[in-house]
């Protein structure tokens, strides 16, 4: 059970920083609260007393959203459901929509925020690998100023981030990638409300003929302490044509990265299958030529 002495919902950043200053070391930032309340229960953190809860969802800057041709800026308190409801976001972030479809359930998506998903820093967070694939940077603010850093550096381990004392995650900026084929592959015990055992975000851009890889972005979570980008696989895929053979080779490359605490053998099988399925799905949506994506390949993996 979570108890607190006070719960405030500041209406601007300055108010939030004042509350942080007044309760140094004795506060917790909360956005959607969908991770915080289940955390403070028996078997996890148990009964927890936090003197001050600071709810950041009423701060306008954290709820803002802007999209241009190159970049997307997401307020940290953007609810996950927005990735499904906003056609502009769906166009700019091709794998985020597909990630949101599989995220928790309709009800929790309306409440849970992208910033919360990142800061919670679960090794199996669904949103983080997608945004890493979109080259996301996080914007952090404190009473003393602002800084930006790559999301891939921000998440440092299970439930650990580079967030400094007194700092808040205010926004995420990432590449807008309209025209890319996107895919998000996830496996867990059931359709809804499931924490990923493994999840993979794939983004693919092909040449006009749909045969050669112009750009590819791959990130994976659930196989180690934090989500990771698969740079070497991306380089390999960009170096040649899209063929069934090369897809198979690419799929084998990250298998050795599996370093989870449990079910490693299973996860290795999943990683290989997801690499193929994710790349094939992304390629299909990127307009791949039919000679590349044969019916057999699709039947086997997509």
């Amino acid at each position, binding site marked *: 059970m979570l108890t607190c002495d006070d719960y405030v919902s500041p209406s601007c950043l300055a108010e939030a920083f004042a509350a942080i200053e007044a309760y140094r070391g004795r506060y917790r930032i909360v956005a959607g609260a969908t991770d915080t309340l289940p955390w403070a229960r028996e078997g996890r953190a148990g009964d927890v007393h936090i003197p001050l809860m600071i709810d950041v969802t009423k701060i306008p800057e954290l709820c803002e959203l802007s999209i241009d041709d190159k970049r997307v800026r997401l307020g940290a308190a953007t609810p996950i459901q927005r990735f499904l409801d906003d056609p502009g976001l769906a166009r700019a972030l091709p794998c985020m929509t597909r990630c949101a479809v599989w995220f928790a359930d309709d009800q929790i998506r309306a409440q849970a925020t992208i910033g919360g998903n990142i800061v919670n820093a679960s090794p199996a967070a669904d949103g983080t690998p997608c945004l890493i694939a979109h080259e996301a940077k996080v914007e952090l603010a404190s009473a003393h100023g602002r800084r930006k850093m790559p999301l891939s550096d921000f998440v440092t381990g299970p439930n650990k981030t580079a967030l400094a004392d007194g700092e808040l995650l205010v926004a995420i900026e990432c590449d807008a990638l309209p025209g890319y084929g996107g895919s998000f592959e996830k496996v867990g015990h059931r359709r*809804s409300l499931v924490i990923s055992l493994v999840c993979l975000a794939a983004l693919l851009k092909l040449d006009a003929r749909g045969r050669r890889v112009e750009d590819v972005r791959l990130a994976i979570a659930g196989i180690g302490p934090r989500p990771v980008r698969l740079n070497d696989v991306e380089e390999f895929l960009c170096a040649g044509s899209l063929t069934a053979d090369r897809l198979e080779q690419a799929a084998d490359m990250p298998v050795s990265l599996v370093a989870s605490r449990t079910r490693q053998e299973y996860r290795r099988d999943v990683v290989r299958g997801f690499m193929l399925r994710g790349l094939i799905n992304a390629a299909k949506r990127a307009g791949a030529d039919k000679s590349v994506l044969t019916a057999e390949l699709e039947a086997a993996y997509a």
Partner: protein
Amino acid sequence: MPDLRIEATINGRKIARSAKPHQRLLDFIRDDLNLTGNKEGCGAGECGTCSVFVDGVLMKSCLLPVAKAQGATIETVEALAKTGELSVLQKAFHKAGASQCGYCIPGMVMAATAALRANPFADREEIKERLGGNICRCTGYQKIFDAVEMARDIQNGSLPATALMEADTEDAVLGKSVRRIDAPSKVSGRLKYAGDMIMPGMLHVQVLRSPHAHARIVSIDTEAAGSIDGVHGVITSADVPGEDGFGVFVNDQPVMARGKVRYIGEAVAAVAAEDLAIAKRAVAAIKVVYQPLPAVFDPDEAMRSGAPVLHDYAPDNITKHIPIRVGDVDKGFAESDLVVEEIYSTQPIEHAYLEPEAGLAYVDHDGVVTIVSPDQNVTHHRHMLARIIATPISKVRFIMSPVGGGFGGKEDMIYQGMLALLAMKTQRPVRLVFTREESIISTAKRHPSRTVLRMGLMRDGRIRALQMKMICDGGAYGLSTEGVMRKAAILAAGPYVVPNVRIDTLGIYTNNTPSGAFRSFGALQTAFATECHLDICAERLALDPFQIRRLNAMRDGAITHTKAKLGSVSLTRALDALEQASGWEAGAPVSRGSTRNDLGGDDIRPPCALGARFAGGQKQEAAE
């Protein structure tokens, strides 16, 4: 601690009242506003029975700090229809038989309402997906989906509203689809489960549970806990006035641990206080000194000499051994053309009824100790409690509150004894509501089993001999273990004619969570072994699995291996229906997976995939 001032519109009414800053919207609605239609099933956003509309968007109120309701418009299940009326969806749930225990139903009705508001033409796949955040443990969901589809069609005018009316049964109800009489109270949220009930002056109970699997209790000091302001009573086994011990077959379990603890989660002491937070503080202030003892977690190890002994009366740790002998098994194996031996094991399973245990107790004006709880065995418990609290049975009353799912898991008197003692000690009504975690850690599970099964068959598939030894982990206390072992043994040879049988089922004490009743009651473990075994034997003999079962099936008038005469046996009819419905590919079961012709047909559910909302053609694809 400054209280929050919450101004909101709840079910059309403006409210302005204070709330504790740590309260969840669920607590505020249920405890402060006494709107108990929406329930708490898990407290972790998993089950959805607490789902309410916040500014028109469905959310899980157990995940919402109450401060988030500031200025919001909230609708609970009570808002869906006026008193005495039901919405079309609620009527459809009634008509379709979509409610069973009813505990998930307020949330289901809310989620279904949200689904049809979002898309009045949602197809079944989309309905499934939109209801994905709500869990039901009774129905298997099909009737719930039927109800949502029925309501959708009525709202769209493609089905007349008369479809919701009771079918004309012409005085005869057998063979007819009859609406459940308790459904209106469930679909509207009006039915009060034990955790919804309150009484003036009621105290809240919390339980201190053992962190050890096996330990001697050296001392329990409750003085600090008892002196906390707001605490009205603390009890331990020393407060039990009568003969302490309950169970289904053997009364081996004390109301609270006496002398030693035997499993992690066993009740050691209990507190009644003015609110939950005080009760929790008091539980934390109870000082128990334990001396850990060697523990045993595997039933085979528990049977070895020198193993830790759980109960003095059972030095071999055997709770119950049921042996059955028919004919001459050794001769049967010698006559057989094929003898197959395999080992089968099953795991402990939690019932996970959607309503966690809850109970309310009070001593009435005539001095009758009264317990209200979702108790699946009130008469037996009344007798046991009278003996435990040394009170004439005429002064002990059990009232069975609506059971929000039981499946056998609420047959044991796990907590009612503590409630009685606290009601007597404090002279106030007392209520205990388990958390989901508490329910899982402390209550009975399905017996984990390990079965060695040896079967001898003739070349044509006839069974000559069956030898089975099943060892079950009964956990720390007996509960229903004896009954489960009996039924397992009775059903071990399946509905098959077997001339030579040797069966042994053993329930063993270990320091694991106690095992107890769970629907099918022992049949699952042995049937799993016997039926898997028959498939393996069929493959070895190149026979169709249906054929080998028909060949050995009991027919009308059969005598079972426990000498029961069966008047009529429907097995062959069931096999015919199953074979037809499954589209079974005839022949020995030698092909697997995608090479089989009976998988992937119209009636086989494919694996989870994106529903109609997202799969092709819709706005996501259009946007890309």
